[in-house]
């Protein structure tokens, strides 16, 4: 879409929004439109030039910006925004696909209503595009992500049974789910463990059972920056010696790609990756997955853990 069309699209929403919110501040308007203050001001500058033939003074949009507040005299023609376009609806469907909408659930119904709101001529294009672009790439998590997302959004506690790396049986936990996100191919739940009164990070693929409850909670006003919650340990205590792995030449490029901020190439072509704050469970499984292409340089405790894990697996094969 050209820049002029993109700008027009913004204006066709901005005008009715302004008409509905007389005296709104420039900043509030920018927040509602998800634009920067500068973009909003530049759009506002254009509006008084917009009119209709015969372009006498009364035929222009009447807009005033005073004391940082904006008022627009309602122009009846632009009382509501235009319909959704097929790509707009499809982009939303592509995102919703990550939560696996299923016949009968709220998300599925919402998507059906979205489709119904499209002009009939646009429905074919919507369906095609929505089937070709998708965030639904996590087979097996379907039954978890949607209820998790709902609990997060509706601020309801949930009870999970969780299989940690070390436990033989799933453990029951009551949680206040604060955030669900994916990182490096894994989905995580960042939550308050109600019984332990401590924040914890859970891998979604290790949840064996999930039961939503009606118990309300209030999440902290400010969550950590996305990605920061992965480093709970590093936040609380500086590690004496951060974990360091070295990847062989065969997978050097992959390591650089996967850990852009943490990897550095050594003169011989191998790649050294320093991963402060990473969880031990994840580090051990990372090393095992790259067996033959990786060395664990330190710290000593991590070396010992990986070595023990290797021996345990080998022992199984030698039985």
């Amino acid at each position: 879409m050209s820049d002029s069309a993109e700008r027009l699209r913004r204006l066709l929403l901005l005008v009715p929004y302004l008409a509905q919110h007389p005296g709104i501040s420039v900043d509030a308007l920018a927040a509602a439109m998800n634009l920067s203050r500068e973009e909003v001001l530049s759009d506002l500058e254009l509006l008084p030039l917009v009119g209709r033939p015969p372009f006498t003074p009364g035929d222009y949009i009447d807009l005033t910006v005073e004391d940082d507040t904006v008022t627009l005299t309602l122009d009846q023609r632009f009382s509501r925004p235009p319909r959704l376009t097929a790509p707009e609806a499809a982009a939303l469907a592509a995102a919703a696909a990550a939560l696996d909408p299923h016949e009968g659930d709220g998300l599925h119904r919402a998507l059906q209503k979205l489709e119904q709101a499209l002009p009939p001529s646009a429905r074919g294009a919507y369906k095609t595009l929505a089937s070709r672009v998708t965030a639904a790439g996590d087979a097996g998590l379907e039954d978890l992500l949607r209820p998790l997302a709902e609990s997060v959004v509706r601020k309801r506690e949930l009870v999970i049974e969780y299989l940690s790396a070390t436990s033989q049986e799933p453990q029951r936990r009551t949680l206040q789910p604060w955030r669900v996100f994916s990182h490096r191919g894994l989905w995580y739940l960042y939550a308050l463990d109600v019984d332990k009164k401590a924040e914890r990070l859970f891998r979604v693929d290790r949840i064996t059972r999930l039961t939503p409850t009606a118990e309300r909670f209030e999440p902290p006003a400010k969550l950590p920056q996305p990605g920061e919650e992965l480093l709970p340990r590093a936040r609380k205590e500086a590690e004496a010696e951060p974990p360091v792995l070295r990847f062989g030449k065969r997978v050097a490029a992959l390591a650089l790609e996967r850990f852009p901020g943490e990897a550095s190439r050594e003169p011989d072509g191998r790649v050294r990756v320093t991963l402060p704050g990473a969880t031990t469970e994840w580090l051990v499984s990372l090393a095992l997955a790259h067996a033959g292409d990786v060395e664990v340089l330190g710290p000593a405790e991590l070396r010992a853990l990986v070595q023990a894990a290797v021996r345990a697996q080998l022992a199984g094969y030698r039985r």
Partner: protein
Amino acid sequence: MERTERLLDLVALLLDAQEPVPFAQIREHFPDYAEGSAEAVERKFERDKAELAELGIPLQYRNAEEEHASGYLIDRDAYYLPELHLRAEEWAVLHAAGSAALASGAFPGARDLGHALRKIAFARGQEPVPQFTDQLLIGEVAREDPKLRERLELLWDAVKLRKRVGFSYRGFSQTETLRELDPYGIALRRGVWIVVGHDHLRDALRTFHVSRMGELKPNTKKPRSPDFEVPADFEMARFAQEQAWEHAVHEPIDVELRLDPSLAPIAGRLFPHAQLEDAGTRVRVRVRFVDGLVRQVLALGARVEIVAPESVRARAIELLQALEASFGEAR
């Protein structure tokens, strides 16, 4: 007159019109349409019409009838966003999914998505617009690859308009190649954005990691006419769900795994598409890339064992021994 201004004036004029507005009259009001040859003016008007159609605003041409001359108008009933009748909980989860995609910083069609959310929020009337939340994040967090956002937006347009793209690509082998691709679809596969399409270099269907693409150049010639057709039997979902051991590297073989009972409840999640037996403690996987499966098994530790065939078991042992040996080497 700026283009945006002209388009907005045109929408204002036609939305307001009680009857079709003849083109002669439009020309009169818009100096931009009065300059140049008749063909140049027509081309300009056609471009504007196409641009408005892309925004979901179709200009309709009406033939002359008794009560009016021939001309253009915008059907008001078709223009305005209708009431969606979304219940609060339906909107909550739809908004959560949409804003989760935006919050990650890179999502194909992010601009379209943002508009969709704002339009729906608007249609819901005076209730406060929910803020974009960071409680839910879908996709790679873009801080790790600032170019990802831009590439996904270009690919979204290319998939939408079926336009060919050119890019340099550095795959696993590290050799850089120049590719011409007819992009059929985009998916987030296990946290990584991929694009699938017809690769002209290999003359075959291929999958590319968006983060491994160099500068991406869409074909800008004839932007409104598609460069290719997507085969009727193409299914993006199949590629989106493909596991590492399902990449077509060799002829398929069946591999049998033994799982510790503690992993049985999540066996289907650890090995999607596999056949589960004995309550999830015995798993049969169809494999087209042995190392892909072996590495998944190794990562799970001693709770999973490869039972058969012997060659795959031997590969696991070989890799484990290599890792064990690395502990004896100098640091």
